[in-house]
């Protein structure tokens, strides 16, 4: 019994689902950001798996770009977290509703 691409795709789907669950259910802003990272990581796994099967390195390039964007996103997101915490004294996303119309 060898490992096929389906194994990797199913694992990627599972990780993505767990990340989406964390984004929906958790109330802590930092943990929501971490779950977003988990979702990005799962999609990277699918990219690399397809890249291996197709014998094409474009998927690897895409993953490099994705990791760069994730790093930039985390930096900006954590800057927002620090600013929000110093201003509102909480990170509960149910309390933070300034943007609600």
């Amino acid at each position, binding site marked *: 019994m060898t490992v096929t691409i389906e194994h990797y*795709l199913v694992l990627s789907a599972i*990780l993505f689902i767990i990340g989406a669950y964390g984004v929906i259910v958790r109330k802590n802003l930092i943990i929501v950001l971490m*779950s977003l990272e988990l979702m990005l990581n799962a999609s990277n796994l699918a990219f690399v798996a397809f890249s*291996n099967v197709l014998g094409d390195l474009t998927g690897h390039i895409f993953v490099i770009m994705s990791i760069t*964007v994730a790093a930039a996103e*985390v930096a900006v997101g954590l800057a927002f977290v*620090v600013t929000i915490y110093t201003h509102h004294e909480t990170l509960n996303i149910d309390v933070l509703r300034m943007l609600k119309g």
Partner: protein
Amino acid sequence: METIIFYVFAATSVIGSLVLVSHKNPVASALSLVLTLFSTAVLFILLLAHFIALIQVLVYAGAIMVLFLFTVMFLNLRDESLRFDAVKVPVKLGILSLLLLISGYFTFIGFKKIPPLNTMVISHPEPFGTVEGVGEVLFSDYLLPFELTSVLIVVAILGVVVIAKRRFD
């Protein structure tokens, strides 16, 4: 052998992500995310993506996680973060099963749509996925996106400095 490695590290990555979304302490969540990212790096090596695995450990498990841990410890969230997060268990299970259902449906559709290709994980000749192979593609075919990435990072740095310095009143 590869099968055993795959299953072991797939299990650790799933366990790490489950701890990430369920643990109350943000520090434990961050450390379990490190576990997940390391396991995924091992899976990348199994898929012959050596350079991606290296980048994963350096950037994700190194830089990004240090940033997360630094923020968690800087804000000292521990006692406050234990109070909220009060979604009821049936609601949690409902959301999880709904997501599983949707993703299972789309996975089924996707597997039907994939053209019949060789689905075995194959071992390519040497430059595939190494620094040499990826660099050759990155600096010839994808040079413009690579340069645009640097613009993105500069914008992100400037944005972070502006956001973190200003006091919103």
